[in-house]
């Protein structure tokens, strides 16, 4: 789950990192009132995506009236596919230097990694192009944590004022503690600035918290940004199912992420186009009926391809769910099965008896038939 700046910054502050005073505004009037209280400010679009500044979503304002005018333009703007619904009114900061700092999950070392660059305030990719040596990487043993010495090592060559150096070390230690306590996959401050009076202030924060840790992060889960989902994707998520709309016409119902992705690939290989990713393996294998109901609500679906290869998931349980749902819903479209693995003999018999449909022995044959049906041709 992702956290927008206005939600992430107060969390950073809990770990001793200084953030500017700010207020959230949903209307130009609210923006004006906030600016009146704060003084000269920055009006910042709140959307869970980067490049807000380039899109014109971040503007400085000297007066409340100017803040209002910026808010009028920014609220309703489209940035990275998101519509801006609110702005953060934030006190301006006296910036001397801009850095970049982040703690991320590093798959290669199977542990956390501190990233620090003296080139803050711009895209990481852009900075890397200008100077690939600027980014420092420090692996952190999770059983030890980030030590003072490790934190100092990433900026040792920067010749900072001693006051700023102490504050920066403290900020990096706070950033690591935030990563650890919040079960973050990524916590990034860009820019992390040195002020004219050698304070360290976080001017932005991007936070992604591990979905797997949600049960023990119940306090912050409600602060996360809503995910960008279609109506059906949201419905599936509420049922604990992973469903992604893809725009094609062959409905896909398979178990397990690997097999579902593969089914999509094989459909494309034979000239068809999948309407969705929908996986009912893992713990979700008993939810076949719920899954099918959601899948069939998509008006683009012309036929359904059911591909089960049961390992953990029992194909007889899944097939029973699909057949029961099919008999309830009576959709006016063809259905194609290919079923193997755990419980396959029972599953095949069940489909044959209750739907009068003969499952294909080879997955490729089932896919070809589904692709033909979706394109209006008779199955070969």
């Amino acid at each position, binding site marked *: 789950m992702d956290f927008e700046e206005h939600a992430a910054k107060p969390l950073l502050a809990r770990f001793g990192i200084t953030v500017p005073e700010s207020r959230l505004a949903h209307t130009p009037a609210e923006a004006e009132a906030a600016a009146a209280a704060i003084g000269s400010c920055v009006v910042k679009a709140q959307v869970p995506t980067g490049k807000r500044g380039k899109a014109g979503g971040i503007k400085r304002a000297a007066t409340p009236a100017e803040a209002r005018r910026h808010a009028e333009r920014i609220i309703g703007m489209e940035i990275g596919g998101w519509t801006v619904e609110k702005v953060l009114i934030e006190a301006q900061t006296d910036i001397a230097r801009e850095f970049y700092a982040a703690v991320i999950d590093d798959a290669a070392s199977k542990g956390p990694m501190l990233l620090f660059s003296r080139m803050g305030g711009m895209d990481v990719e852009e900075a890397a192009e200008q100077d690939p040596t600027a980014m420092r990487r420090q692996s952190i043993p999770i059983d030890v944590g980030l030590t003072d010495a490790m934190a100092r090592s990433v900026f040792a060559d920067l010749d900072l004022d001693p006051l700023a150096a102490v504050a920066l070390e403290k900020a990096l230690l706070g950033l690591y503690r935030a990563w650890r306590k919040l079960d973050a996959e990524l916590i990034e401050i860009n820019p992390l600035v040195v002020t004219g009076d050698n304070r360290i202030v976080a001017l932005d924060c991007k936070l992604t918290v*591990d979905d797997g840790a949600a049960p023990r992060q119940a306090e912050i889960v409600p602060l996360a940004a809503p995910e960008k989902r279609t109506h059906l994707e949201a419905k599936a998520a509420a049922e604990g199912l992973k469903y992604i709309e893809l725009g094609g016409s062959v409905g896909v119902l398979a178990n*397990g992420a690997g097999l579902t992705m593969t089914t999509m690939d094989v459909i494309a290989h034979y000239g068809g186009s999948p309407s969705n990713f929908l996986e009912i393996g893992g713990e979700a294998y008993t939810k076949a009926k719920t899954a099918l109901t959601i899948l069939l609500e998509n008006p683009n679906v012309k036929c359904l391809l059911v591909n089960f290869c049961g390992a953990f998931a029992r194909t007889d349980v899944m097939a029973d769910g699909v057949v029961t749902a099919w008999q309830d819903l009576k959709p006016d479209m063809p259905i194609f099965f290919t079923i*193997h693995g755990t419980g396959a003999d029972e599953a095949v018999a069940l489909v044959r008896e209750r739907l009068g449909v003969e499952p294909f022995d080879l997955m490729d044959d089932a896919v070809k038939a589904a692709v033909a049906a979706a394109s209006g041709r008779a199955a070969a």
Partner: protein
Amino acid sequence: MIPRKSDRILIQGITGKQGTFWTEAMQAYGSNVVGGVNPNKAGTRHLGVPVFATAREAAKTTPFDIACMFIPPMLAKDAAIDACEAGARLLVCLTEHIPSHDVMEMHVAARQNGTRIVGPNTAGLVTVGECFVGIMPAFNANVFRKGNVGVISRSGSLGTLLCLNLAQAGLGQTVFYGIGGDPMIGTTTRDALRFLDADPATEAVVICGEIGGSAEEQAAEYARTMKKPVVAFIAGRQSPPGKKMGHAGAIVTGGKGDYASKRRALEAAGVGVADVPSQIPQMLKQLSIAA
């Protein structure tokens, strides 16, 4: 690091519904299950083996080589660390959705205790005709038959399909090595490739990869040095970038870990890459791998 019939197996979470179902299946197949763990049922017996409070307790009287976890995600870290500290040589971690910080701590415990973790989020390991550990349909004769092809897969369901394709074509397998769909796994595609390279019964290897991460690219470097032929299928060619396709590890971000780069790396290393899984048996036969 390929499970053998003689390896002694401890099942953590043996008394649960899934633990019971799969332990019975493992026992029926020939796996040497010597004990189980459930803190609330310590001192009892289940499926003919003693149940202990912890893996460390078990190790005192019932030494074991492999621990296999049927443990829910929020409890997985403690169980895994227990198994490592009890001296498990191999830990098969089936659990999906373990918090990533917990996974990191599990890997630290594994390193400190000399345990090899397979997974998390693996479907397990099958040594065909000998034993299996995990949740694969090893007992299904339409899918698994003894042969000379080793199969490595991130995914249990896709791995099952690949094994099925081999069996349907009259080929068979030596070992199925499920490495898991998570981003931070203990045993990589490259590690598994190394084990199968060293296995005398394995004459060729099939890699079932997925988009995301760099496991296939790293495996390609090793495959280049092998005498045994390697072929591959990579799932996710049609998956939109930036979306997690079920497996936490299967995501293309910032142009990294995409289908094209994996295919390029494998082909450059002399690994044939199939467009669809059903082409794999034919590719093996062209490499003179016969049943």
